[in-house]
């Protein structure tokens, strides 16, 4: 696919015109994306969760914080204990008598919103810093790179804790704090990408033709980094979902709100484990993990599609030469 793009694209186009989606021939990247199993797996899982979050009032109507009456439950559960799943409550109730399923559905709203906002915000911040550092070079680069590396080496959780503890608890604070701690990785990735793009001829051409620096950055450099941009946005979202859950678990967000993190916080605080109430924390954890897994798969797929090296590897391994390069070298047989 990589060796002669024109030819392969043409043949691929001919191939697709036979299928029902000829318009896809103009979008080779999108086509590769739709054909990628990892990408499709990731997209469908994320689509599912986003739909659940959007349709929460229809899927699980009612207030997620409502304490359900225990009268209709089996007598054994009348005491202050969480109840397991059953007909009335699909996934049971929490220690405070709240419907776990309803909380799970409504909690996805806050968790996904925080995750996506941090993903977008920290990637934009990181891109601005990375672009500036990589393109301007010199002392600006030295200072910004130093700052980036310092941010990367300072352990995240303790820093998050003191930042969140000194600010007013709430979703906005969480997004802010996670953005402050999360921009460094995108910045680093962007900077190295810009450095390699800067050496390309078309950048030199626009410099020589007298274009202004912002224009070069935004209309020449940035469009060529879209895959890296999306990739680090997905990565930052994974980080944010996990860190948000961690912060909530420590009790550093507003624990009165319903999110996946606060659900785990209450499960732990009500000793969900030691009372055997596994349904108060297992479904939440699985949802968090599924989201993170889906986004990670999406990132791998992006990598496979846009990184020629990995693509080449995939093609050779799926073709005739199914074994590694070294193993077909005849000298090694002893």
């Amino acid at each position, binding site marked *: 696919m990589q060796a002669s793009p024109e030819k392969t694209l043409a043949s691929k186009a001919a191939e697709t015109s036979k299928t029902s989606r000829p318009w896809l021939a103009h979008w080779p990247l999108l086509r590769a994306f739709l054909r990628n199993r990892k990408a499709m797996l990731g997209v469908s899982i994320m689509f599912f969760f986003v739909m659940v979050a959007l349709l929460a009032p229809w899927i699980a109507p009612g207030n997620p914080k409502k304490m359900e009456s225990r009268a209709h439950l089996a007598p054994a559960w009348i005491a202050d204990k969480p109840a397991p799943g059953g007909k009335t409550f699909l996934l049971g109730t929490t220690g405070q008598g709240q419907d776990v399923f309803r909380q799970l559905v409504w909690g996805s709203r806050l968790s996904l919103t925080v995750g996506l906002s941090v993903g977008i915000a920290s990637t934009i911040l990181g891109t601005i810093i990375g672009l500036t550092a990589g393109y301007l070079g010199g002392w600006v680069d030295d200072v910004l790179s130093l700052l980036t590396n310092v941010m990367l*080496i300072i*352990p995240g*959780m*303790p820093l998050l804790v*003191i930042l969140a503890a000194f600010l007013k608890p709430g979703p906005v604070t969480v997004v802010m704090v996670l953005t402050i701690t999360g921009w460094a990785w995108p910045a680093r990735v962007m900077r190295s990408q810009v450095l390699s793009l800067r050496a390309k001829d078309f950048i030199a051409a626009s410099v020589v033709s007298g274009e202004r620096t912002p224009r070069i950055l935004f209309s020449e450099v940035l469009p060529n980094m879209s895959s890296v941009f999306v990739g680090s946005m997905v990565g930052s979202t994974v980080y944010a979902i996990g860190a948000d859950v961690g912060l909530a*678990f*420590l009790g550093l967000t507003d624990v009165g709100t319903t999110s996946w993190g606060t659900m785990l916080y209450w499960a732990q605080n009500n000793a969900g*484990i030691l009372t055997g109430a596994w349904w108060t924390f297992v479904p939440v*954890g699985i949802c968090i993990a599924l989201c993170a897994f889906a986004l990670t798969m999406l990132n791998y797929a992006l990598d496979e599609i846009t990184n020629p090296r990995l693509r080449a590897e995939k093609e050779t391994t799926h073709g005739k030469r199914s074994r590694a390069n*070294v193993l077909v070298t005849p000298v090694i047989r002893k």
Partner: protein
Amino acid sequence: MRFLLRRLGFYAVAAWVSLTVNFYLPRLMPGDPASAIFARFQGRLRPEEIDSLRKAYGLSDAPLLEQYFNYLRSLSRGEFGISINFFPAQVTDVISTGFMWTILLAGLATVISFFLGNVLGIIGAWRRNGILDSVAPPLLTFIGAFPYFFLAMIALYFLAFQAGWFPLRHAYSDALSVDWGSLTFIKSVISHMILPASCIVLASIGGWMLGMRNTMVGILSEDYITMAQAKGLSQQRIMFSYAARNALLPNVTSFGMALGFVLSGSLLTEIIFAYPGLGYLLLQAVRNLDYPLMQGLFLMITFAVLGANLLVDILYVWLDPRTRR
């Protein structure tokens, strides 16, 4: 040598940044931090505690710069302030009780996971598309997607609570006292460590394995590997001394950043197992709004991570002859 000096300079800057953040953060709170904290406690704080808070933050009417230098001076003497929760214990004393357990648990788990992950990555890349290479990466990615402490919750529930194979909490049996000379004590420590340590290993091993595998794959197509094959060197030698040694370098470099991440996860894991390390202290600090303890923990953990990175750099010099110039 120049490499090490440069790294040392970098760590000095990182330490300075974290010190300064730590200094300014309380001062960014509206009003004076001691009163703000006092307000949050809604009068549950004794007057001498407020005084000690004021002293801990070096709050005075002196200009900010003078306060800053006073702060640095008291830190250099090892005075991190007085804990509110464990009043009137020094923050450093409180932290030192947990430090050993965290180093033991997180340190050991990280080393095991780094070693195992890299070995698996080497073998996976070497036998490309073998069973290990096709099963382990997606499986470990999936496991790695769980929050560390959720894995810990699951393990605690099923293996310790339901099955009863492992102790439920703490770092050693409650019936014993700390005595590193006695065999029963060490046995108890090990049996308490197995479950939390395996959770950390399981959650972090995937990253190492994938990183190693991908670099190995790239390196295996290099000419010098073909050359080594052509010379008829033993497979073991090509795998470890030619390919793996070079593939290890990027992984060692990323070790520093990953260390902070793994440590963050293991702090939360400690909380699940009520392991008496820094994570447990952090939870105590958050629950009780013990700001001096929180800040002390932040500084201590940061310094520990920087120190560990310096050790890794020394290892790097030993691994990569190019840095020895």
